[in-house]
């Protein structure tokens, strides 16, 4: 009997998920032993045509990482979905949009303006901006259309399983791979991971909380035994699914929330926000403002990993104005 076929793909991502798979170390040999790897552009030389040539459903499992932010990402998502029996949203970007998803606080035009014109490190005296189509002597060059809104994999194609983490821990990958190999899979649509929070696994001592200001990590040396949040260090462990073994808080770094919301939570950022808002030591709106002023970029903190699949998904207006007609085409991708 032939080995089950495995595909791995990266859409809009940093590549960390690929490294995480390699981070299995010698266990990667077990993966190679168990599966016939048919597509893994980061590591092996496959072409898109190779996938297109396959039968529908020929791939047994596709581990898809990265968010969907352009036509190429979407094309591969659709293609691999069609060719795969089991589609796994691998890592936080495919699951919740993650860092690329923070682009949803802006729109394409704002981003391009910053990246190609306004950023302090940009040197672009001729104001050159990438065009989707460019005529060259050799012929027309086409770049994938860059979307106004970043989406999660599940917002583009049906997804069978979610494997959270930025990147997923080796142990999480192992759990998932083992489950797939053994066929002992949870019900479709499940997140593969425990349904407890990082807080639950964190050995730090918790007390009744009252936060009177936040500290950046470089500003204080936290007490090694007390809850970081109580000490004013932002920690999303209260609202974040475990699976990592509470690694970050154990070494004095607040949880960033990469494993995403706990089971049953619909909006990760909202849950972090209400949790934190509940323990601010403030009686007046002014005091609340003063405390939040010590937390730079709260939206970025709260929605770092799950902006595109939050209730709001993105900002609808820019600078308080309604979208211009020219922008509404892009908005239609919402």
């Amino acid at each position, binding site marked *: 009997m032939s080995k089950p076929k495995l595909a791995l793909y990266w859409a809009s991502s940093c590549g960390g998920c690929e490294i995480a798979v390699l981070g299995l170390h010698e266990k990667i040999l077990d993966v190679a032993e168990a599966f016939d790897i048919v597509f893994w552009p980061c590591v092996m030389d496959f072409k898109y045509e190779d996938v297109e040539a396959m039968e529908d459903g020929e791939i047994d499992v596709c581990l898809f990482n990265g968010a969907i932010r352009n036509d190429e990402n979407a094309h591969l998502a659709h293609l691999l979905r069609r060719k795969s029996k089991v589609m796994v949203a691998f890592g936080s970007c495919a699951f919740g949009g993650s860092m690329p998803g923070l682009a949803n606080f802006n729109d394409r035009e704002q981003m391009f303006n910053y990246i190609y014109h306004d950023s302090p490190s940009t040197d672009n005296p001729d104001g050159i901006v990438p065009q989707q189509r460019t005529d060259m002597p050799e012929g027309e060059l086409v770049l994938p259309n860059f979307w106004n809104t970043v989406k999660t994999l599940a917002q583009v194609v049906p997804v069978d399983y979610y494997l959270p983490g930025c990147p997923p821990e080796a142990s999480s990958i192992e759990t998932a791979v083992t489950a797939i190999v053994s066929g002992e899979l949870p019900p479709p649509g499940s997140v593969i991971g425990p349904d407890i929070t990082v807080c639950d696994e964190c050995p730090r001592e918790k*007390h009744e*909380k009252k936060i009177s200001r936040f500290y950046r990590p470089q500003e204080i040396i936290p007490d090694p035994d007390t809850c970081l949040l109580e000490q004013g260090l932002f920690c999303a462990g*209260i609202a974040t699914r475990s699976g990592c073994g509470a690694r970050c808080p154990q070494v004095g770094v607040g949880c960033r929330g990469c494993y995403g919301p*706990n089971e049953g939570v619909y909006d990760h950022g909202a*849950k972090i926000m*209400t949790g934190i808002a509940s323990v601010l030591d403030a009686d007046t709106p002014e005091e609340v403002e003063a405390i939040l002023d010590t937390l730079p970029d709260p939206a970025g903190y709260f929605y770092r990993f799950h902006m595109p699949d939050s209730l709001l998904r993105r900002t609808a207006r820019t600078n308080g104005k309604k979208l211009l007609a020219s922008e509404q085409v892009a908005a239609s991708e919402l």
Partner: protein
Amino acid sequence: MSENEKRVGVYVCHCGHNIAGTVDVEHVAEWAYNLPNVIISRDNKFMCASTGQEQIEEDVKEFNLTHVVVASCSPHMHEKTFRNAVERSGLNPYLFEMANIREHASWVHPDDQDGATSKAKALVSAAVHRVLHHEELTPMQVEIRPEVLIVGGGVAGIQAALEVAEAGHHVYLVEREPSIGGHMAQLDKTFPTLDCSACILTPKMFDAGSHPNITLLTYAEVEQVDGYVGNFTVRVRKKAKMVHEDLCTGCGTCWEKCPKKVIDTVFESGLGYRKAIYRPFPQAVPKYPVIDVETCIYYDTGKCRACEKFCPTDAIDFEMQDEIVNLEVGNIIVATGYDLFDPRRIPQYGYGRHENVFTSMEFERLVNAAGPSDGRVVLRDGETTPQSVAIIHCVGSRDKNYNGHCSAICCMYSLKFAHLVKERTEAEVYNFYIDMRTIAKGYEEFYDRVLEEGAHFIRGKVSEITDATHASEEEGKLVVVAEDTLIGKQRRVPVDMVILAVAMEPRADAEEVAHRFGIGCGDTGFFTERHPKLDPVATVTEGVYIAGACQGPKDIPDAVAQGSAAAARVLSVISQREVALEPVRATIDEEHCSGCRICNTMCPYHAIDFIEADSVSRVNPALCKGCGTCVAACPSQVISGAHFTFDQLIAEIDGIMVDVNIDEPLVAAEMV
């Protein structure tokens, strides 16, 4: 029950013309058949009438309904009515949802019939979508302790205490001052009958002090309240009186011998003196004195001890400490009364600057036969009888700068003052009023009487009280400057004495007290009743009632009536022996609780405990009021609020988002 076994009945109420005048109720009822699982949909003139309720009962049986939606008024009004009807029909009462298409649709959009109708449809849709996710809930029964705590020993609190005690239940009556009696004990006469205030109050005070079922805790304050209806634990601090009440006979030797005279700012409103060891007034209950350690010479210099030396029963104890008493009670009546407006906040009225500007309470003490001037109406020099007196109404009341509310009693006590001045002096009396409000029994007749006695009434708000004179007849007088709006002229009225009819205000610490007892304060700062018309002495916290002026300005008969009413409510609860608690409350899935303790400080009812051993938080179901604060706060969503579950709320939102202009069957929105 699977989705398609659910059978919903929808009832759209006309509320006479209230809803049907704006909302096309027939159309809403007809359209509701498009909503998922709706088996029967009707409109009805008055759903709250017995015919409406019986319709629900009949339909549940005939159509095997499993869930019921009534679109009518606010749930505050009739949720209980319809829950009862649903329960009578054999269903769990919580398998019911109410859509408020009166306050939320017809009343707020009277000029937009189409819009109001569309909104009503959306609200009905929301209710139907939501009710499909409702679960059966059962109230929890708890036993009720018969003991009652009454906070505040004014006339409302005394009345309540006597009612409860007479019914055979034990009362703890806590009073901040050394004696019960409250403001009423300071008054001379009461309007409109001119009864002597002390003569009618002191028998009640005596009864309260001697009743076997009443424990008086004077010079004491409630510090903490825990628990819930039927089972409150209350911590009371009894301030050290420095006098052993079991030894003291109230003979009075101590305050006669005490060398330290102190201006009495409380009972005598600053017009008279008391000693450092004192009882506030002769009829005080209890009759025992207290030592005011702030002014006592011994506590300042370590010397004196005159009272101790002369006390025939050795009742004085300078080392006495505050005592903490923990009480177990089933119900609480808060009757903490009011404060008087400080007229120094209106500098142009000159109180504190012009010596012959008095507050109403100062004047009460002046005319009181037991007061500092033995009842003579005199100026602040204690000798001169005024030839002319101005009484200024609405000082700090009905004035956006201070209090918007009407203080309810000032018109009447101003009339009483006018009468008393007329009775005891030859003085001319000028009442400066905005409107005369003499609304209760015998009040208008009293107004007529004072008019006939020759008091002058000038309709206009006083702009200034000044000693800057414009004419010789103003020399040495206080000039009251006001526009007489009835003749359209500016008036300057020179008088010898001015009485400011100051407003009734919430106690300075009302908000703190409200928080302690789990009740609310309205915009004006007075305690909020559960319903302004139909539940005036209950509060949002079961087992905590309010009575008297802490709820809003009121006169003595109203305060007494509320004291009785609160007592009646408490007695009714006690006689039920046990009480059913709303099952709408939060529960924590302890298996998944991370013990992060975010929720611990959130609960306004102190219902969440942290269980150290298991490192989880737990909700005390009897304390939880189902407010949902912790449900929202829980960052890992392991706290669920019964009857306000995530599924129910999202379904409700899905329901309200349907396109109400589409007239075809809607599929139940897919759960997110």
